[in-house]
């Protein structure tokens, strides 16, 4: 059996590396899904490139999922599941967000308007702020709720 090709061999990874050597810190593959880890401050720039560049056109943002990796630090992981409708390609972008200070990430609503509610949901349930979001309010929990239920240090049965 031959070894599976290294994630570095993917054209998309090589293309991003050629475009900017700083853009991707790590490329990983698991069960056939490619994950690109980006520096947090490059997210919007890389997103702009991926969304508009001919031949890539990742125009459909399926989902944004946050994961709390407590006790690891940086603690939060944000996964952006992108889909290119013209090319039938999928891609996962990941950024790490520290939980030590006020966790903040750039909003991608200007690139993919669908991010609006996804980001509100993550703000609501994880307490991560999105810079540049037009209307960052709680969405699922009541407005006066205290705490962020999907954080790992939030008990399943709630605080009593």
């Amino acid at each position, binding site marked *: 059996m031959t070894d599976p090709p290294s994630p570095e061999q993917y054209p998309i990874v090589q293309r991003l590396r050629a475009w900017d050597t700083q853009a991707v810190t790590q490329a990983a593959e698991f069960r056939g899904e490619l994950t690109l880890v980006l520096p947090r401050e490059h997210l919007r720039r890389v997103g702009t490139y991926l969304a508009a560049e001919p031949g890539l056109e990742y125009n459909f943002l399926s989902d944004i999922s*946050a994961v709390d990796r407590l006790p690891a630090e940086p603690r939060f992981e944000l996964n952006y599941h992108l889909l290119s409708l013209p090319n039938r390609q999928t891609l996962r972008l990941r950024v790490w967000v520290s939980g030590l200070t006020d966790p903040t990430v750039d909003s991608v609503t200007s690139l993919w308007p669908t991010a609006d509610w996804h980001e509100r949901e993550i703000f609501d349930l994880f307490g991560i702020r999105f810079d540049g979001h037009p209307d960052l309010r709680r*969405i699922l929990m009541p407005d006066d709720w205290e705490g962020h239920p999907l954080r790992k240090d939030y008990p399943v049965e709630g605080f009593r």
Partner: protein
Amino acid sequence: MTTTVQTATGATETMVLNMGPQHPSTHGVLRVVVELDGETVVKARPEVGYLHTGIEKTCEALTYSQAITVTDRLDYLAPLSNNLGYCLAVEKLLGIEVPKRAQYVRVLLTELTRIASHLVWLGTHAMDLGAVSVMLYCFREREQVLSIFEMVSGQRMMTSYFRIGGLALEPPPGWLDRVAAFLQTFPSRIDEYEELLTSNRIWKLRTVGIGVLNAKDAVADGVSGPMLRAAGVAYDVRKFFPYSSYEEFDFDVPTRTESDCYARYLVRVAEMRESVKIVRQAAAKIPPEGPIRTDAPGIIPPEREAMKTEMEALIYHFKIFTEGFAPPPGEVYQRIESPRGELGFFVVSDGSPRPCRVKVRAPSFVNLQALPEMAEGRLVADLIACIGTTDIVLGEVDR
């Protein structure tokens, strides 16, 4: 919270009206804050969360197998689609393949689910717009589908019939006859609905040109499923990223280009006919005998008989039901085509027997975001048509 807007008759005061959360036409507990100028919707703002039950958090406290039962409760009109999405995600995480026989049974049942779900949609949407009798017809056929589910799984709605690695139990003898009987009558029933609605003048007045959402905006808003296909974008996960052997089935993806409520109605009706085609093929493909669960000791519960004779099987059974199984650390995103659009399960394993995170990409949560774009500038009555055509299930929106 009143603002003044410039209208045809000069500056007037607008009125803010709360629609919901208790309102029959919102199909659950959706609240829409509408700003009205007379009967015209100036602004519509959906407020969700009234049915938030913390399903994603609950999943983190359950084992991988136990979490199947809560997925039923997401989109309660299509529980088998949810089961399928979740099971496929965990199977991908584990790297196991399900036997073909089980895959075909899964395809057959999820397509019946699509029919049942579209029937509820058609019945309630038509009732919202004043065609009350359609509801009675649709629920008559839906009952037939639910009785098939009951026969197979013992449950009409919260089936939990798909399990990690295959199916919960062997389908009962004679179930395919029941499916065949349904298939024989159902196409003519669809004709009946179409006779009632498709060229009905009132129906067309209420839906043609209403709630237009063009392809560009729909893609930007992440809208998927029949709503996207009614705007001319042929994105169907079954064709783009086939799962559970969908690549072996011959079916079309109906699309329209008008992007209005009427186009969505036509797309969904056409989808029911396509589902009939798939069910028919699947019923012919399912071998009469064969395994319904994959062979993966320690993950798939052993047969009852084996437990009585083999020590190993007894131990596995005990381990699976007391502590569960631990997939390797990693994460997968599995998308399927649910009746409402792209249903995604993002499952993260940290190497323990309980998921570190289960995120549900609920299609109607995302589709609902487009409601203001469809409804603003139109009449209140059209807002009802727009909510209906979005086909939301609040269990899934709020999770």
